[in-house]
């Protein structure tokens, strides 16, 4: 990789937002699966 330090810093700064998106997505997914189960198991 020949990225400049500035590019690397910008790239690193992006990751916390990506991680947060993964966490929110997972919580929403588990919630959706619970809802699916609840709807069809009544």
């Amino acid at each position, binding site marked *: *990789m020949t990225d400049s330090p500035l590019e690397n810093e910008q*790239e690193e700064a992006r*990751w916390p937002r*990506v*991680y947060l998106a*993964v*966490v929110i*997505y*997972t919580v929403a*997914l*588990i919630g959706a*699966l*619970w809802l*699916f*189960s609840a*709807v*069809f*198991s*009544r």
Partner: protein
Amino acid sequence: MSWVDWAVVAAYLVYIVWDGVRLSKHSGKVEGYFLADRSLPWWAVGLSVMATQLSAITLVGTTGQAFADGMRFIQFYYGLPFAMVILCMTAVPFFYRAKVFTAYEYLERRFDARTRTLTSFFFLLSRGLGVGVIIAAPSVILSIVLGWSEAATVFAMGLTTTIYTMAGGVQAVTWTDVKQMVIIFIGLGVCLFVILSKLPEGVAFTDALHLAGAAGRLTTVDARFDLRESYTLWSGLIGGLFLMLSYFGCDQSQVQRYLTARSVNEGRTSLLMSAFIKIPMQFFILLIGVLVFVFYLFERPPLIFNRVEAERIERRESLDARRLSVEFETAHAARERAAIEYVRAMRDASGGTVDQARRDYLEAERAFEEARRKGLETVRSENSNRNFTDVNYVFPTFVVQHMPIGVVGLIIAAIFAAAMSSISAELNALATASVIDIYRRHFKPEAPDRHYVLAGRVATAFWGVFACIVALYSTSLGSLIEVVNRFGSFFYGSLLGVFVLAFAVPRATARGAFWGLLFGIASVWIASRYTEIAFLWFNVIGCVVVVVVGTLLSLTDRGAKGLAS
């Protein structure tokens, strides 16, 4: 199987071996053979990560589990995305920037050679045995479909994969993984479509889900906190998190995948691909198993799916077996009528009738399950096979008996693909750890590249044969997916503990890490031997014991120094 199905399977096998072997020209150097010169794009690495985790056991074992027990198993994966985030922040940059070949090599830089060798040894032991179980699953299928002996199928499957892994190294493993994942996705999609088209007239998809849900097959979140239960929300989130951290962060078969990426960021992206896709994909695999359950509400299933065991019972012509068969047939007919009535009642949507129809359906389902349980008990007692379990035979039997021509071949090819993608990655990782951590480190530190590449090929061949021998013994164990996960949990948590010490405890010393690891494994052994704690929690126990004991011992070391690198 028709000749068309045979042709599909044969075409797949020939293509994949040819594709893997032709990549051998890119693997003349050590870094090329073991790490693909760190040049692979994130999407190929991401698919390879998923293909390595998704074995034939996942396809065959979990569909069977969903048929028998529902979707509870999905909770096993709830900790995975969180583990991926933690690893993207820690292990991926640590390993990548350290320019190591194996995860354990990093431990020598952080601690000492003894800790590296011990962790690598535990990896070789647990994975060497684990890959045997991974080979056993498709051999079970083949022994049913082809009527071959299990020994012949084990060697045919294991040695085929060994050939292209030996020749092409990690390049062959990754690029065949990509194609194998495509075949798996297509196979699963077609399978789901065909099962839905086979539901009887008047039973819609939502009716099928209601029938499955009423029978307890759609539980995806079990919020009870019970340490003895294998699959709950908490065991998945906490125990699963620790297991996934260990598997993706300390198991060379996965670490090697993202070490082949072009950069740290591409390595991270490849792991996050699993974070997004794994749970939905597992949901669809389990859904297939659940829909097979619904399909057999309207089509008489075999009392015993394992054809060999069923024929042994039939040959005896005992009165008990005949009575059981009649009882089973009656129970199925009653359950089918009750299921149809329940669907009709839901359509009419009058509250009291629906409740009554649901109660009748559940009563019939219980009677049916009882008849089936008696059948399994009969096999266990009359065939003197105490470990017998039928779940692994459900899906392949369904495929062979009820899928159309061509689709059978496609799904068998997908199961082969799942098996071979995992086997190849494991063999490649076992060879890498054997050569880099043991052979080059302790026996021959200075040699030309071609020597280590040759050693890598010899090690791949050795582990391929070893895994085949283990596979011959593991086909008689219980649910295969659980066997692999239980076995992994025995070592994984403790290995994770050593890496936690390395990454997060600056004062940790080599002595603390070494003895902490041994204490961790001993504590897991004690927990498994003397308590009823479910296996996912072993990962937590092992990790916590290693970190606590390792930290305490490190603090008692005179002149303990902080993190060196």
